[in-house]
């Protein structure tokens, strides 16, 4: 419900406020079978401009009913992520990922300090007392990123004109550390781009 609402809001904003010197990019992501893929992250890295660092940005990865929400969270490098625990039991949050290795010892509520993700890459998080809890944070070195909804689409907006490398990533990519790339030149008009991702079948124990 929450996700749908956010998506709707995002769409409304995208449609309602186009920038004058920038263009939007509509992205659709499907799997090899042509089905729309949700939870895919697509981000555009400018080949000309320097990578931007987020400053003072805070993102939230909730823990609700022994699940991380959202399942996939894209953030810009430098973002601080808070892990509020909304359950009445303690949780641990850990990651052995090279992009960010950390462990938040068992805590309740908002006791855990925020974690700063200062390196681009994929961070896989779990809870060491709840094997089924799983979440991904994609740390992108660009402010232009978005995540697909159930329809498998997203919109990147306010892209300055220029050359971009558009990357698509999904937790079930055959090689999770290698996003799928497409080069693109953004002009004055809004563009469109489509990704077809080769995904592993969903694992039994995986999220949802």
């Amino acid at each position, binding site marked *: 419900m929450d996700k749908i609402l956010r998506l709707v809001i995002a769409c409304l904003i995208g449609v309602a406020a186009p920038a004058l010197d920038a263009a939007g990019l509509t992205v659709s992501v499907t799997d090899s079978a042509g089905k729309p893929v949700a939870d895919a992250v697509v981000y555009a890295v400018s080949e000309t401009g320097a990578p931007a660092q987020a400053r003072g940005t805070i993102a939230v990865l909730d823990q609700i009913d022994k699940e991380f929400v959202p399942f996939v969270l894209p953030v810009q490098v430098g973002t601080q992520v808070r892990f509020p625990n909304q359950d009445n039991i303690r949780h641990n949050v*850990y990651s*052995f990922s090279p992009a960010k290795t950390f462990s938040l010892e068992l805590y309740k509520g908002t006791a855990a300090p925020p974690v700063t993700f200062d390196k681009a890459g994929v961070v*896989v998080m779990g809870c060491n007392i709840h094997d*089924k809890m*799983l979440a991904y944070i994609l740390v992108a070195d660009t402010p232009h990123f978005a995540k697909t909804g159930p329809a498998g689409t997203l919109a990147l907006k306010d892209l300055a004109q220029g050359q971009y490398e558009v990357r698509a990533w999904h*937790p079930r990519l055959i090689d999770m550390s290698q996003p799928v790339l497409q080069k693109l030149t953004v002009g004055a008009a809004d563009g469109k781009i489509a990704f077809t991702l080769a995904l592993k*079948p969903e*694992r039994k124990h995986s999220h949802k």
Partner: protein
Amino acid sequence: MFRFKSFQGRLVFFFLGLVSLIQVIVFVTVDATNLTHAREQIETALDLGAKNFRRLIEARTEQLSESVRILAGDFAFKTAIASGDVPTVRSVLENHGARVGADIMMLVSNEQVLIADTPEPHLDALPGPMQVLIRVAEQRDRARAIIDIRGEPYRVLVLPVLAPVPIAWIAAGFKIDDRLAGDLQQFTKLGVSFLHRREQGAPRIIASSLPMKRRGELTQALALLPPPTEKATSIELQSEEFLILESRLAGTSGAPIGVVLQRSLEEEMAPFRELRNSVFALSAGGLLLSLFGAIFIGRSVTRPVRALALAARRVEKGDYNLKLDTNRQDELGELAVAFNNMVKGLAERDQVRSVLGKVVSRAVAEDLMAHGIELRGEERVVTVLFADLRNFTGFCEQRTPQEVVTVLNTYFTLMGDAIEANGGVIDKYLGDGIMALFGAPVAGEDDAGRALSAALAMSLALDGMNAELASRGLPPLEIGIGINTDVVVAGNMGSSSRLNYTVIGDGVNVASRLEGLTKNPAYRTRIIASEATIRASNRKFVTRALGNVSVKGKSAPVAVHAVSGSAEAQGESVDRVSSGM
């Protein structure tokens, strides 16, 4: 067929033969059944064993799998692995591997690179089959197989190390070795051998619960067998029969590993052999018992029968002085009673016959025996002979009674012999006189002729006796004989308790009268026979007609003749009715 001399032998042979036959049949049947049963038992055990065997290996794998899964979930373990420090990872593998009882542990990266392993010395690279296993584990969350590591088979399982997505793959395994075979033997109660079946040559035993010596024999035996068919097969190892079942171990990569389960037929038969020994003992006991039984029954029959036969033989010889035991209640007892009664009857009859023979003439006695006593007369033609001593009273006066009896007995014996030699029957003694019959009680051939011959024989015998008397200085005896042939009444006469066989009638009186005539010296003869007798005789005699005499009781006078010899003896023809006087 062998012939038995005794009933007992036959009985014993029959009984023993029958009992033995039954026992042999029972024995053979039981034995065959037991053997079949034992084979079926083993076959069932082998089939079950093959199934259980897989289950046992599966269970063991499962047990290891659970342990390793818990191990892989251990956060400290994950932390150690994530450290990326190979010596640390290796030591944690050794430490945790020992915890779960694995013979081998390996950690493999997502990129299928061997990170660390426990065997010493360490492996150079990931064993080939492991790549396949990890691929399977990626799909199914786990994988297991028997793989070859440095030429030794291991049961290996692969599980992901989740953090919480797979960050590496952990492999753990146990070795297929003698210890495992021994453990499995304990569970299945079957000989367990793991082996490599090669395309060519004898199979190679990898591990076994068998002693070393047996393994070589098994290898040789297996080399001769066709490829395994998952069916029980009989083989011989050192002349001991085994049933074996060879099956392929599932989930094997590389050279196929087979497992041979086996059990000794001998061992399986052991309880049956005990049973067989018992049956043997019982059979022998039964045989012995039936032998005694047969002998006992045989004796109980043959002994009285033999006694009976012996007794019968004695009776045959005229010995009636015996009595059989009659204290038996059965048929043989009845037989003994009947036999005793029979002997008693025979003895009585014999006694009667012998007594009778002395009292009456033998012919009369036999007639009485044959026809019984009939108190009735019959008319028949009989030649009656009367003989009497002359002047014996005078002879007696000068002699002792002893002398008289001796002389008289000698006389009677000689006369009796002469009469009986000619087929006559002494009817009775009348003091020193004799009455004899020819033609009664049984009619014979030429009774009249035989009577005349008897008279001549008597006369001759007396001459002989007189010569003997003279030699002792005794005076001679003189005799007169009268013979007549006539129809008389013959029969047993008297009361029912005492009777005499005799003849009565005028003819008898005439004979007596003719005997009296011989006293007349004018006739100069010892023997006077009536015309009727001379005429009835078929033989010829030297006779002399004495004319007619009137006899008391006879209306017509009777023609009489003096008889002096046998015509055949004299060799001349004599006119029977020659004139005399």
